[in-house]
């Protein structure tokens, strides 16, 4: 295949890292003896990593913070579950259709609301999420209401095999994240995040780009909802559509490192670990811990855990290529206020390492 040239946005090193990471994770349960519990939690973590990365496309790349992603998570989950129940579709197809439905739903509310910027958009998404939750909770014919939906036992994939499906989803999402960041579209997104009007002046179709990113993000989160439904074999609207779930995506991405690729993935690992360990022993502590982490990240390390790792790497003499990822919360420079900070020179970690 040496005659094939890699596209401009793809570096050979990232590709090698990506394939190596994927192979290692694919083979890990076959070679190493991983306990059942750890194995399953890892599968779930892959899904959360994918969802956090998908949230990050909108929150990190475009700078539009969504507090309503549980809406797509729930729509994807319930459509997939209903399809599996009614039509006995293969779960893969069900996830995919559920995801697409979620993506379309995202466009439905997103196309008009994405015109809003910053806090206005954020607050509007709280409204969208809460309204969706209320409707879903009371639409008992579809969601099973407060008693939820049980998936047929034995029909879908086993929890054990879900590990690999989770890995496939994650691999696809990492590749998409990398492409979205490095391609022409990625540059357009940075421009939109910096200044939406100036981006329009230089020919970036902000409406189209933002709609596209929201659609992709919603679709992936919807697929994750489908995965979650298969994983739990039981879903109820109070959980799927809950505000806490939307918060979860934000926390994973922001604590990990908003706008980067490695960050949200790391954030998801931390999130799941805190949840698995603290929720079992100190169920009351975990939200506050996340809150504290969020405050610390915003005040001291806007690139989150990824930024922290980057600092350590720099200390050790590693020089990452400039312009790998423009991270950070919202636009860091603006024409009138604050000190302009060269965004392209604050590199986040590259793509391949996340897989």
């Amino acid at each position: 295949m040496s005659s094939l040239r890699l596209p401009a946005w793809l570096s050979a090193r990232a590709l090698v890292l990506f394939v190596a990471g994927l192979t290692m994770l694919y083979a890990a349960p076959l070679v190493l003896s991983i306990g059942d519990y750890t194995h399953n939690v890892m599968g779930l973590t892959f899904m959360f990593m994918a969802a956090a990365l998908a949230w990050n496309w909108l929150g990190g790349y475009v700078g539009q913070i969504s507090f309503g992603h549980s809406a797509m998570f729930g729509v994807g989950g319930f459509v997939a579950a209903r399809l599996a129940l009614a039509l006995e579709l293969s779960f893969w197809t069900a996830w995919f259709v559920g995801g697409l439905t979620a993506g379309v739903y995202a466009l439905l509310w997103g196309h008009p609301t994405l015109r809003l910027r910053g806090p206005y958009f954020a607050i509007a998404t709280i409204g969208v999420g809460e309204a969706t939750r209320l409707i879903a909770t009371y639409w008992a014919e579809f969601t099973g209401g407060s008693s939820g939906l049980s998936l047929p036992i034995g029909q879908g994939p086993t929890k054990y095999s879900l590990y690999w499906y989770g890995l496939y989803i994650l691999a696809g999402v990492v590749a998409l994240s990398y492409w979205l960041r490095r391609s022409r579209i990625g540059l357009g997104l940075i421009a939109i995040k910096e200044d939406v009007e100036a981006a329009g002046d230089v020919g970036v179709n902000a409406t189209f780009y933002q709609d596209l990113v929201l659609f992709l993000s919603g679709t992936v989160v919807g697929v994750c909802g489908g995965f979650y439904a298969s994983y739990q074999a039981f879903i109820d609207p109070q959980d799927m559509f809950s505000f806490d779930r939307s918060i979860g995506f934000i926390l994973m991405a922001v604590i990990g490192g908003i706008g980067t690729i490695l960050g949200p993935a790391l954030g998801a690992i931390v999130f799941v670990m805190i949840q698995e360990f603290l929720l079992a022993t100190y169920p009351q502590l975990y939200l506050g811990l996340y809150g504290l982490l969020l405050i610390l990240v915003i005040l001291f390390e806007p690139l989150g855990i990824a930024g922290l790792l980057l600092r350590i790497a720099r200390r050790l003499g590693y020089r990452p290529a400039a312009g790998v990822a423009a991270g950070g919360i919202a636009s860091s420079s603006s024409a009138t206020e604050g000190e302009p900070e060269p965004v392209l020179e604050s590199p986040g970690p590259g793509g391949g390492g996340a897989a």
Partner: protein
Amino acid sequence: MDQALSLTISAVLLAGFYAAMAYGLGLIYGVLRVVNLAHGGLIMASAYVTWQLFSRFRIDPYLAIPIVLVVFFGVGVAMYKGLVRFLPRGAAGGVQSLLLLFGVWLVIRNAAYLLYSGDDQAVRTSYSTASVRILGSSFSVNRVVVFVIALLALLGLHVFLQKTFLGKATRAVAQNPDSCTLVGVDVERIYTLTFGIGAALAGLAGLLASTLFAFNPAFGAGEVLKSFVIIVLGGMGSVVGIALGALVLAFAEVFSIYFVPSYLTAAVGFVLLVVVLIVRPAGLFGQRELV
């Protein structure tokens, strides 16, 4: 017709509480351009403080108002000096401060869980079940008292902002902080004061809410959203704008029972919010002027 009249009075009473609840958020946003997402957490915390004062020290909720105001003013000042001060304001910092204050909310919520568990609590006074008759329908005494207190608070704020030097300085800072610095207004001090007043208003709202509703640590999420609906409807405007926004929301909620099933009442506000944000980002009543 009787029913419509009774619903109207009900909506007006509700609007009073809503206006007091929203003003804290609106003031902080108007002056600092920061959405205080911890507003809901402060409301919840204040409901617990009121409940503790009542159940431990037998202090009547309405007599506890000065205590709560002072305490939450202090909390607000501390939040500003300790956290918000370090973030950029305006368009560039809007999302940062939003997330930071969101973190504060999570911490407050968690603290309440740890201290008081997730159970519902309520402040039950001897007059909690008493009612008065207004134009042929009966209403709970508490709702009427809450309305009157909310009205007084708004009136007091209006006078403060319009007549006193500090109030005028606050309005000036909302319009243009840079020119305020030029004419010798201590902008940082005004920001601190504003955050304190905003938090004190959240405290007042929590105290009033505790006499009307049962609450738990998750209380306040809906209140923050409704507050935002109101300041968006009112156009981040004056006390009058906030009052109008509160009236619109209260009427929409109360009269929605004619059109949608009762469980969807809570969704009315959110739908209204999204629609107004899209159709009229400057607010229903359009004034862009702040505070």
